């Protein structure tokens, strides 16, 4: 599959009828029907493209009506018909287009797009495998960075790709620190009573203590890993950051488990929402904060319905609940005046999961790279940010973060694999 380049904004993209960034006609095929391997266009009802994806007709999206998710949105500031004059100071390079004015992205819907290919990722894995085995495992951390760099470099938001700035050395040191402060003490608590031949009571106490420490370390690792990953992720050269405090998350986490347990699970949707709210509302892009305005009780009715339907549908209804939850959480996440929007459905989630399982079984696990690519593509395809974004107002405000939490997370198997930070 080869890409085409927009003659106007020079953006490389899959062949399509019009540029996904500026809307210039490209003369490519209209994106329909979706080829098996090619990333399909997102079925967002708010499409700046002249041709909405024909394969996914959305009754809510009449053709060519422009921004409609938020009808009160201001009109576009910049249109193709009237490009502003180039500012002075730029030498006359023949092909140079005039720079767009401040707040250049005025179309209302900003999409995510994943370009990665399973084959390339598989190649990275193969080389990582070889070097990891040859270095007796030490290369693992450098390999991890390679994979993350690839995944983020292949992810595009509003025409620009993400970048990962972590290093293998950081991850290695983080791992060693986590080994020192977590793994060795916990291991000691499990082994020492056996070696010292202590009584059953002492053994039970040591084991209990070990599990308590693990329980406390889980939220520490979640926050630490989030802080590290976001601090090393950038878009347009601006770093993300996570500024939530471990202490606050610990309360939400332990309290949430407690309440979920004593309400026999009924607190679950509120717990999920609270965790998500904490994560979202302490996330920053540069000096601008993400926000969250959802409430767990909004999901309660859907949750009850899911509980009722999950057994009669052999568990399949759970995908529909998950999709509902994803949509709800996305749609209550904001960034400045813009709001996220998800079009995930239970059917799509089910198809993704079944496809992934099938792929892994048929390839005896070797298809893992293709599964990650499918997941990333899925995560991007159904998520958009709707509303005005003024990039010129966002300035760098990077935060320091060590990789210790990341190391802890790897011990606790909290690796979520792919995330956008």
């Amino acid at each position, binding site marked *: 599959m*080869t*890409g085409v*380049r927009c003659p106007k904004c*020079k*953006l*490389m993209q899959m062949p399509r009828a019009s540029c996904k960034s500026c809307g210039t006609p490209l003369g490519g095929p209209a994106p329909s029907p979706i080829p098996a391997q090619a990333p399909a266009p997102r079925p967002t009802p708010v499409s700046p493209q002249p041709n909405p994806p024909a394969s996914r007709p959305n009754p809510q999206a009449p053709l060519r009506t422009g921004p409609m998710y938020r009808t009160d949105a201001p009109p576009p500031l910049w249109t193709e018909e009237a490009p502003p004059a180039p*500012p002075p*100071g*730029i*030498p006359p*390079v023949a*092909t*140079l*287009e005039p*720079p*767009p004015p*401040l707040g*250049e992205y005025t179309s209302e819907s900003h999409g995510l797009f994943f*370009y990665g290919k399973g084959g*390339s990722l598989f*190649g990275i*894995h*193969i*080389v990582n*495998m*070889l070097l*990891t*085995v*040859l270095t*007796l*495992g030490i290369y*693992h951390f450098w*390999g*991890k960075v390679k*994979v993350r*760099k*690839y995944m983020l*470099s*292949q992810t595009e938001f509003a025409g*620009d*790709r993400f*970048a990962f700035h972590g290093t293998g050395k950081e991850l290695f040191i983080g791992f060693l620190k986590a080994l020192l402060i977590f793994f060795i003490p916990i291991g000691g608590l499990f082994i020492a009573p056996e070696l010292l031949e202590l009584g059953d009571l002492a053994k039970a106490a040591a084991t209990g203590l070990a599990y308590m420490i693990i329980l406390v370390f889980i939220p520490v690792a979640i926050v630490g890993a989030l802080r590290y990953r976001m601090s090393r992720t950038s878009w*347009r*050269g*601006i*770093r993300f950051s996570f500024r939530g405090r471990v202490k606050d998350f610990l309360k939400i986490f332990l309290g949430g488990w407690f309440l979920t347990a004593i309400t026999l699970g009924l607190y679950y949707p509120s717990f999920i929402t609270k965790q998500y709210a904490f994560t979202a509302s302490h996330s920053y*892009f540069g000096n601008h904060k993400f926000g969250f305005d959802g409430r767990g009780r909004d999901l309660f009715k859907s949750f009850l319905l899911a509980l009722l339907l999950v057994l009669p549908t052999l568990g399949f209804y759970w995908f529909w609940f998950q999709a509902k939850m994803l949509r709800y959480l996305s749609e209550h996440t904001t960034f400045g005046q813009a709001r996220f929007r998800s079009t995930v459905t239970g059917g799509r989630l089910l198809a993704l999961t079944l496809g992934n399982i099938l792929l*892994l079984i048929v390839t005896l*696990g070797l298809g*893992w790279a293709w*599964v990650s690519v499918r997941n990333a593509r899925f995560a991007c395809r159904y998520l958009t940010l709707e509303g005005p974004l003024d*990039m*010129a107002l*966002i*300035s*760098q405000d*990077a935060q320091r973060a060590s990789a210790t939490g990341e190391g802890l997370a790897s011990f606790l*198997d909290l*690796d979520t*694999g792919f995330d956008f930070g």
Partner: protein
Amino acid sequence: MKTNWEGYYLDGRSAARHRVAIHLMPSGLQVTTEAGTLWWPYPEIRQTQGFYAGEEVRLERGGEIPQALLVSNPAFLTELHRVAPGLATRFHDPARRRARAKLTLLAALAVIGITTAMYLWGIPGMAGIVASHVPVSWEESLGGAVVENLAPASERCTDSTLARAVDEITTTLTRTLPASPYTFRVAVVDNLTVNAIAAPGGFIVLFRGLVERTQTPEELAGVLAHEMQHVVRRHATRLLVQNASTSLLLAALTGDARNAMTLGLEGARVLGILRYSRQYEEEADQEGIRLLIAARIDPAGMVRFFESLKEKEQGKEPAFFTYLSTHPSTADRVERLKSLAAKADGQWVTLLPDLQWREINQLCHAGGD
């Protein structure tokens, strides 16, 4: 030669991107922004994106928060290599992508080769070295714990005649063993399974079902000789090391994919371990029969015992299951034992000449009843 390119410049301070003109020079990039001209010497620039088809080129310069240049046309890199051939070696050359694909293929072959070599020779060799350095006292405490679990005192046979008979056979065998650091402790447990187990450190557990199945003391001596070789050759300790290192090897191979591949990994590990375990069974058979011959005990007893097991399980399981078993197939074992026994001849001692084995081997009762 195209030396003028366009791209975007990210200053690392604001999220606005600036359209720039980039001029390729022999020693660096001249970047013209709306605010003025920047000079980026090649040695200070690093490439962070643009290694794959369709991915824009990203060049970074500066410390913790770098500035970046984005060029969407990949031909830029080709030109860069042409304009500054010496200095540009630090940048990706799209012309080499084909070579990279070949190298990846080579890496795949190397992974397969190394894994196979590690599995066939590396892990068993290392396990042998490690096991020979494990102190016998560690093996004894580990084996003691296993036996405590498997054959608690309340389930052991208490009959003293049987115990004396078993002890005598054991002593006959140990006399001919070269000096070994192990003290053999044989327990008979009141359980109808036809089985025997060698735990590390010299502990051997015979199940009542097996003892009752043996027709002569020589048959039991065959089983004991087999289990003793497991102990002396530290098979259990080696298997522990091999188990751990197979897990490590598989973890190193799969890295982050381990969650997705959990099932496959567990399968691979178990299959791998089973093969090691079958090799040890074969070794114990072979060395066990040698031990019998050295002790002047007729090896025909051991052969006969395995033959009786073979008759019992005849037609029970297809040959395929041999590969899924910790033991070689009984038919194979009997054949191998027969050929080993055929080589030996001579005067055999009679074990327990004054006792009626068929009565003694029924004497097992656990302490309680």
